[in-house]
């Protein structure tokens, strides 16, 4: 596979950037020129070759650097990874799902050999080789969820399903858009969504929950979410807010193109077979405004989306104060011509 994993950082000197190929495959999340919350869910079936939907778990040029960043966050704050005791089985389910999918879809990089419960796993990009006994925690260096999510891009939460609700009872959360696993652990679907504006009134969460409780094994689903991040910082956590929050006051018309990033989450939903839990991988993709502007359709559309976004949403997503600078910058790319339907670049 002709992909080199980049050596780059997501903090301090921020050397992260997207190659031209990564820009072209970026999951631009707006199918039309405006945005409002909706129950935007669809079956997670393989998409266009080369797109981020092609594989069950997309592995891209940022893989190795993102895993290194995760290890640093965990070293500083181990509570970013937690699993209540009854969720260990769900952790094994997740490990099996990811190992099977990666070994099948990226055979050059990953391999899994199963001999009964004796498993042999190889992760070439991270230079990991492990023989272990499936369902026996003592044969892994850490719990199964932690083990596999230290090797998989994106955050993960595992929901127990009981009493007609979903409960966030485990997770690995180091690349989040300003929410905290330590705070949300043990909450149900309505509780952890409480801070979201407008969506409750629109019945979005009652419908979404019914849909999710009905997600069945073998038929995963997906949706997009998005926000804005200054500098390519993966760990925009409440825990570290004092470190990154003040950067919001440093955005200028001169640096907005370089520093402002559209942050897109490809969220997927999988029913786990042994535990009946629901896995929720949240894969984060970052693209700086300058990179995005190389695709004329996206720049035109993003200008219209941000310009017309209700203030409640801009405030919740944390860019209300910078919205004028962003809109002014994006306006230079918008000549008023129509955009083609759908989110693919022209």
């Amino acid at each position, binding site marked *: 596979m002709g992909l080199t994993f980049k050596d780059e950082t997501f903090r301090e000197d921020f050397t992260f950037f997207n190659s031209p190929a990564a820009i072209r495959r970026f999951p631009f999340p707006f199918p039309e020129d405006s945005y409002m919350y*909706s129950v*935007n869910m669809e079956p997670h079936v393989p998409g266009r070759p080369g797109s981020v939907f092609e594989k069950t778990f997309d592995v891209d040029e940022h893989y190795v650097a993102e895993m290194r960043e995760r290890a640093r966050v965990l070293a500083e704050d181990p509570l970013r990874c937690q699993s209540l005791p009854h969720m260990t089985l769900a952790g094994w389910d997740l490990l099996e799902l990811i190992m099977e999918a990666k070994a099948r879809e990226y055979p050059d990089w990953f391999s899994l050999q199963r001999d009964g419960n004796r498993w042999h796993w190889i992760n070439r990009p991270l230079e990991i080789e492990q023989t272990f006994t499936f369902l026996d925690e003592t044969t892994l260096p850490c719990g199964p969820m932690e083990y596999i999510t230290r090797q998989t891009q994106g955050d993960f939460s595992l929901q127990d399903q009981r009493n007609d609700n979903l409960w966030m009872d485990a997770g690995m959360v180091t690349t989040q858009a300003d929410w905290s696993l330590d705070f949300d652990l043990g909450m149900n679907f309505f509780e952890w969504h409480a801070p979201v504006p407008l969506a409750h009134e629109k019945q979005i969460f009652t419908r*979404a929950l019914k*849909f999710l409780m009905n997600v*069945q094994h*073998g*038929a995963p*689903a997906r949706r997009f979410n998005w926000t804005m991040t200054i500098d390519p910082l993966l760990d925009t956590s409440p825990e570290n807010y004092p470190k990154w929050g003040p950067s919001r006051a440093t955005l200028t018309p001169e640096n907005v193109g370089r520093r402002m990033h559209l942050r897109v989450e490809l969220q997927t939903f999988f029913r786990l*077979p*042994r535990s009946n839990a629901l896995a929720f991988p949240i894969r984060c993709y970052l693209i700086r405004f300058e990179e995005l502007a190389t695709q004329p359709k996206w720049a035109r559309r993003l200008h219209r989306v941000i310009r017309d976004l209700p203030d409640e949403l801009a405030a919740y997503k944390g860019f209300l104060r910078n919205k004028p600078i962003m809109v002014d910058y994006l306006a230079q790319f918008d000549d008023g011509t129509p955009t083609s339907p759908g989110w693919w670049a022209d």
Partner: protein
Amino acid sequence: MSGGAAKIPVRVAEVTEVNALIRRIRFVRRDGGPMPAFSGGAHTVVEMDDHGTRRLNPYSLMGDPADTTGYSISVRRDDAGRGGSLYLHRHVVPGMDMVISHPVNLFALDLRAKKHLMIAGGIGITPFLAQIAQLAALGGRFELHYATRNPALCAYGDELTARYGGRVHLYHDDAGQMITLPALLAGQPLGTHLYVCGPKGMIRWVRSTADSAGWPRAAVHHEEFLAPPPGKAFDVTLAASGKTLTVGTHQSLLEAIEAAGVDAPYLCRGGACGQCETDVLGCDGTIRHNDHWLTEAQKASGQKIMPCVSRFEGRSLVLDR
């Protein structure tokens, strides 16, 4: 309720007469691959083509959930039922090709429980067989109380007793043996969860006894099969495109519209996103609303339908599509 679970093409590997009323059927994948693992309490929906009538019946998976070589179900012959069990008793033979769904669990263990107390009646034993296998492997604490008419109909009773000894209690109606439920419930440690599967009357009895003993609702679980999605064929007229088509038993209305070459919006295909909402221009019959999108008032008005999950029974349906 959703667009339907993914399907598994299987072959019948074994048919075993367990007793006068119950037969066990074992399925393996036609391609020889492993079955998905499942969680104790899960069922599979077995598709049957019963001489032109399509039947979709859910049966609990009774094997060890960790055994992915095949799935076993136990079917009690129901001479008065809708016919699915009679079909499985009379027509299914080893070597036959069938289609079943991926496992779906509506009777899951609460893995936080300190102890699992299980009450089974008759064929209601089947989900517990899988749950017990799962708990035994995980080192979970359980106790089973299993009532049948007589020893001859006490399917799997001997195997359970042999393997789990004092954790299994058998009761035979013909011998006048009864589960002394109030005393049983009163003696449970804090953090016990109660599970019941059996005839409707038994479920009602266990739930109400637990209720009056002050058990929290969330600690009392019973198996509740969803009604199988109505699969009768029906006709629909698409006014805007001037077409009349038949929605087959195996199709959703949305699939039939797409198959007719008419572009229809959709996203989730599971009745939640609202994308496929369609105006009803004429309806002489009953719309079977299976979605989570329309409000109760909209459903009652009969002026909207969600074609990805909803169906129709009656004389004629005209849509603005």
